[in-house]
């Protein structure tokens, strides 16, 4: 049991389970999943589907934070991705064709990779603090998205585009399948190759890593590109779900949700240690929280209040002072908790 408590994922998973238990107590049908028209329906499925964008963005953010960085521009990048795709589809000759969607998605993802290259360039080549380097795009990005959509909410009617955010494949929502696929690829790359360790070493000390032969600059650059890619796909999901590109509100505050998911998952904001599984749990926790609050009769907008409480609680639990206090009270053999 003591071993279990010491696992990094223990507390976040416990919190998620408690939240689900609370929901089930209030609405007994919460856990039920039924099959209808070949799709799975139910609150849990909704949480998975709506949580997909946050999960994707949080995945990219995890790697960025592991290099001791941060990417504030993901919300703006998501908005730009949606704007590019929708404007392209709406302006094309055959706005309902599947081929249009394919090229629109490719174009949007391409633009996002460019934006990621830009962020990574500022951070890794110019050496600007990540928070500021990405603040530039966070500020200008929404302006750019509005420039692309000309300040309008661009709506598209295209069944193929709709699939990305609201469609189902093999009874499961496409959005969560995409997110889980990206998660699986990232996890394999990070944990079955040396990449994860290299990212952590850059997060611990970029200069020492460079001297040890790690291509610190390339790795830093790559994680920002990956983060922007994830944000772009998330933006496409959001746009597809509403069939519209809303430059002002698409992905608004998703960067904060993503950072929150990463922090809940046990990844240290000081870099050098990350847990992808933790991020998955964190993202699901946030989405479940968002679902819980209206269910138990509190206005949905009060969401922020609960998020604040969670952030404060997690940060205090992670802070050295509190940890020291805990440790002195329970002087048991110190087992070093390995990264998941």
């Amino acid at each position, binding site marked *: 049991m003591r071993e279990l408590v010491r696992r990094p994922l223990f507390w976040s998973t416990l919190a998620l389970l408690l939240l689900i238990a609370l929901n089930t107590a209030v609405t007994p049908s919460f856990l039920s999943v039924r099959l209808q028209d070949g799709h799975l329906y139910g609150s849990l499925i909704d949480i998975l589907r709506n949580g997909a964008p946050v999960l994707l963005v949080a995945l990219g953010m995890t790697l960025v934070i592991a290099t001791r960085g*941060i990417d504030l521009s993901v919300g703006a990048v998501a908005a730009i991705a949606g704007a590019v795709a929708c404007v392209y589809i709406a302006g094309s000759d055959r706005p309902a064709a599947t081929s249009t969607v394919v090229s629109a998605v490719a174009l949007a993802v391409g633009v996002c990779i460019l934006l990621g290259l830009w962020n990574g360039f500022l951070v890794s080549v*110019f*050496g*600007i*603090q990540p*928070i*500021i*380097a990405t*603040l*530039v*795009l*966070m*500020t*200008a*990005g*929404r*302006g*750019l998205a*509005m*420039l692309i959509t*000309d*300040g309008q909410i661009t709506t598209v009617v295209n069944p193929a585009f709709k699939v990305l955010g609201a469609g189902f494949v093999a009874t499961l929502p496409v959005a969560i399948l995409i997110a889980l696929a990206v998660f699986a690829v990232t996890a394999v790359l990070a944990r079955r190759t040396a990449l994860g360790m290299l990212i952590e070493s850059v997060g611990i000390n970029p200069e020492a890593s460079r001297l040890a032969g790690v291509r610190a600059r390339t790795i830093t650059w790559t994680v920002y590109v990956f983060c922007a890619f994830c944000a772009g796909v998330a933006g496409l999901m959001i746009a597809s779900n509403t069939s519209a590109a809303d*430059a002002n509100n698409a992905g608004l505050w998703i960067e*904060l949700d993503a*950072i929150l998911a990463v*922090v809940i998952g046990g990844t240290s*904001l*000081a870099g050098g240690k990350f847990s992808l599984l933790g991020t998955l749990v964190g993202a699901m926790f946030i989405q479940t929280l968002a679902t819980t609050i209206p269910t138990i009769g509190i*206005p949905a*907008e*009060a*969401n*922020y*209040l*609960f*998020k*604040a*409480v969670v*952030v*404060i609680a997690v*940060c*205090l639990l*992670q*802070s*050295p*002072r*509190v940890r020291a206090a805990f440790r002195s009270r329970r002087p048991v053999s110190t087992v070093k908790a390995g990264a998941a």
Partner: protein
Amino acid sequence: MTTSTSVTVSPTFLDRVRGYSPPRRYLPVAATVALLIGMFGAGSLRYQGFADPQVVLNLFVDNAFLLVLGVGMTFVILTGGIDLSVGSVVALSTMIAASTLQAGWPAIATIIAVLVSGTLLGTLMGLVIHYFEVQPFIASLAVMFLARGLCYLISVESIPIREAGFTAFAQGSVPLPGGYHVTPSVVVAVVVFAIGAWVLHMTRFGRTVYAVGGSESSAHLMGLRVALVKVGVYTISGLCSALAGLLFAAYTLSGYSLHAVGMELDAIAAVVIGGTLLTGGRGLLLGTMFGVLLLGTIQTFISFDGTLSSWWTKISIGTLLLIFVVIQRLLTRRQN
């Protein structure tokens, strides 16, 4: 960072003029001022009536709250921290003001309530940052969520302010010589700015702010009161946000949960464009004022033009931010 005002043998006036090179610390501010003058020059050439002194004064009128926010943010950034909560605290302040006034509180009680709650939030944030070693970014993020959440708890709807004192303040006009005028909120902002400048540049607290920003551990080893200053700057930022919230409430005569979304970005941008180093330890409050004016000028430019859409404001602020960050980076790299 300390200033070395070394007074040597007094040379003649001519020698001084000839051998004058501006101190390094004024260089970024000088760049901001040059850009401001350049933009005004371009504006007055392109648009009729742009060069009117009242246009300049209106920059202050429309950005009084941003100036107040910028003062607090400068203190925080000088210590190497950041405060993302200011926009939400502004919104919370407008909500507290509007709801208490609606409940029939006298204006003075409302003002005190707002200022106290803002200061309290700031102090709490500072305590968490200093004593629990939580990163300023994430601690202020939590306060940002907290303040927005509290707004929604008060009311989801917008609340109008009809109290006589507030409306009189909002519609008031302070005449200046030459037929020009400003609003009372400008007076408040300028007073806050003056107090801020005095504290930052003339007091022991201000010196310590620079010292902590330069190197926290050195400041600590020097026996400076790091804890007081680190908690203090967030308290100041909270107080400034609350005050800015009051000015904003008077400016819009309403309280609304969605007021001031993203205003923290404007405040940070103003401070950075004003030449304050984001790593802390270097910068001037004067620069922040010019940063605020520059942001205001961009908006004026766009509203004078009429054909440019509002989103160009965001794009140009982002571009300016980029330029100044890169310049800062190049300057510091050369010194290292």
